[in-house]
């Protein structure tokens, strides 16, 4: 599988932006500059970015609570996204959504979701619109491994399969549902096995390998566009940080984390770019630097952005 050079370089930039974004968010939380809570996807950048970049124009994505990498992969205005995390008036949601609700319906980003498993049925509905209006577009529905134990998972996959809806159920299996390891929450190793009971393909990809993620999603999207119905894709990956900002991570070992950090998806793509002669080490460094600077600029923009006026409190409850 090859990815076009320009796409690959843009992918590398967005993965670095995602990493830098979340490092900055961590930094901001530690200093009390960002409040509430947030769920970081550091270590899962290939899974979030390459999957969204495999989509076509007009395709939709519904993101999970751990959705920063996916949002950046889908394509966002970094300034507006950071401003939303800082609760500012010019954030994506005018400061009313925060980290768990980054959305841009117009561009096809149907929103991150604070309810684990909440995106399954929403995605089924969005896919129904694509089928009904014959748009030829697909919906990429993100969730974590834990969400597949929710009842809505079953109802949604069943309905999508009988109606042959163009939706990819993209399960990022990072091995832990908060603290609960997968072996204690389901009696199978591969979530992709669950697809069989809905008569849909269940595919596994290496979530830390941009090429595998990209190819798998493109093939799944083709399956959907051909009118063959939904696909379940399980992306095996790992989050380096805790579930949320208040996680002592007593449930896993430093050895395990180190093992996965050695599979750093950004480092893997960086090495590929250099080894294949696509870019020199210096040129790749320049991309890294640009990504960090983009995020510094976004934070600067957000920090200097206005707070929402209290007069906006009651706006947008009803259309």
């Amino acid at each position, binding site marked *: 599988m090859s990815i076009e050079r320009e796409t690959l370089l843009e992918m590398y930039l967005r993965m670095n932006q995602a990493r830098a974004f979340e490092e900055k968010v961590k930094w901001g939380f530690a200093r009390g500059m960002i409040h509430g809570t947030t769920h970081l996807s550091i270590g899962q950048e290939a899974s979030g970015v390459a999957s969204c970049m495999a989509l076509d124009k007009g395709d939709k994505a519904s993101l999970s609570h751990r959705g920063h990498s996916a949002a950046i992969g889908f394509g966002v205005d970094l300034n507006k996204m950071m401003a939303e995390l800082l609760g500012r008036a010019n954030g994506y949601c005018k400061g009313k*959504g925060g980290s768990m609700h980054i*959305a841009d*319906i117009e561009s096809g980003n149907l929103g991150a979701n604070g309810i684990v498993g909440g995106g399954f049925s929403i*995605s089924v509905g969005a896919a129904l619109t694509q089928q009904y209006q014959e748009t030829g577009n697909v919906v990429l529905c993100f969730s974590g491994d834990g969400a597949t134990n929710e009842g809505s998972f079953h109802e949604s996959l069943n309905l999508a399969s009988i109606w042959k809806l163009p939706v990819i159920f993209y399960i990022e299996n990072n091995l832990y549902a908060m603290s609960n390891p997968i072996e204690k929450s389901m009696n199978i190793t591969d979530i992709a096995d669950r697809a069989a009971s809905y008569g849909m393909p269940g595919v596994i990809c290496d979530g830390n390998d941009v090429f595998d993620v990209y190819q798998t999603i493109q093939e799944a999207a083709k399956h959907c566009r051909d009118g063959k119905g939904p696909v379940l894709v399980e992306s095996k990956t790992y989050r380096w940080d805790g579930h949320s900002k208040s996680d002592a991570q007593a449930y896993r070992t430093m050895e395990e984390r180190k093992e996965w950090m050695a599979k750093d998806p950004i480092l893997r793509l960086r090495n590929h770019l250099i080894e294949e002669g696509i870019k020199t080490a210096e040129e790749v460094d320049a991309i890294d630097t640009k990504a960090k600077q983009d995020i510094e600029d976004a934070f600067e923009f957000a920090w200097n952005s206005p707070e929402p006026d209290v007069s906006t409190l009651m706006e947008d409850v009803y259309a």
Partner: protein
Amino acid sequence: MKTMTYAEAIRAAMSEEMRRDENVMFMGEDVGLYGGAFGISVGMLDEFGPKRVKDTPISEAVIAGAAAGAAATGLRPIMEIMFSDFFTISMDALVNQAAKMRYMFGGKAQVPMVCRTPGGSGTGAAAQHSQSLEAWFCHVPGIKVVTPSTPADAYGLLKASIRDNNPIVFIEQKLLYRTSGEVPVDQDDFIIPLGLADVKREGTDVTIVTYGRMVQRALEAAEIAAEKGISVEVVDPRTLQPLDKDTIIKSVEKTGKLIVVVEAAQTGSYAGEIIASVTESDAFDFLDAPVQRLCGKDVPIPYNPTLEAAVVPQVDEIVAAIEKAVNRG
């Protein structure tokens, strides 16, 4: 004008809106060939085909979630939940997703979906098929709640609901489905705006505020009271969210007495909200008797017909409340 049942009026409203707007579609359990558990959609599959009238599996969570997702991306789905009790299974999609999407996404989403569902007791269906849960939905900002009491109201309010750009819970009454009335189907675009109460009977001595199937009982009680020389005004808010407080307040300012009658279990029912909106208004100064509420008893709905009937307010109880209010004043 055409005489039709409440059920036929609902079917007429859905069908007309589906003819008018290609993006309106209808889905639910057994709504196609079967025509819905209460026969509301009989014939609609024939007219609109399986693309627009969709049978779903028994999956209330995804019915509601799919409606929300479809609505947010350009369709205008009508969904049916066979009994309003089954909304417990749909609540995440309705409460956490559909109701909040617009606000939490900074006003950039709109979710035009109508959740039709029958509520209320009186059919011998017992505790899990008979509840009146409208107050739950009213408690969630972002949802509108509609409770029609006549065929004409059901028709005009459903058309308005389908054209509205918000998630709407449209609570029908099982015991009203076969009641008949005049419906202005031949009037081009007969729409009843949401948030507009209707004075079902004018009067000067006592105000009764009620909705759904209790409207008929209140009117019967008002008739009996009239024979005793008491003039009762019956106000039907028709939509609970938004609530037409002005019409209610104006009526109480005229009569000075307020009785609220609802079928739902008393504790936490919408009767409390209606009363509060009066007592915190200027109408408080016009009250010359304690406000009364007649509600369902705080029990699960029982199976035995005598027990079941005893749960909800009776006509003679409403008459007694009217007399009590008048004698106090």
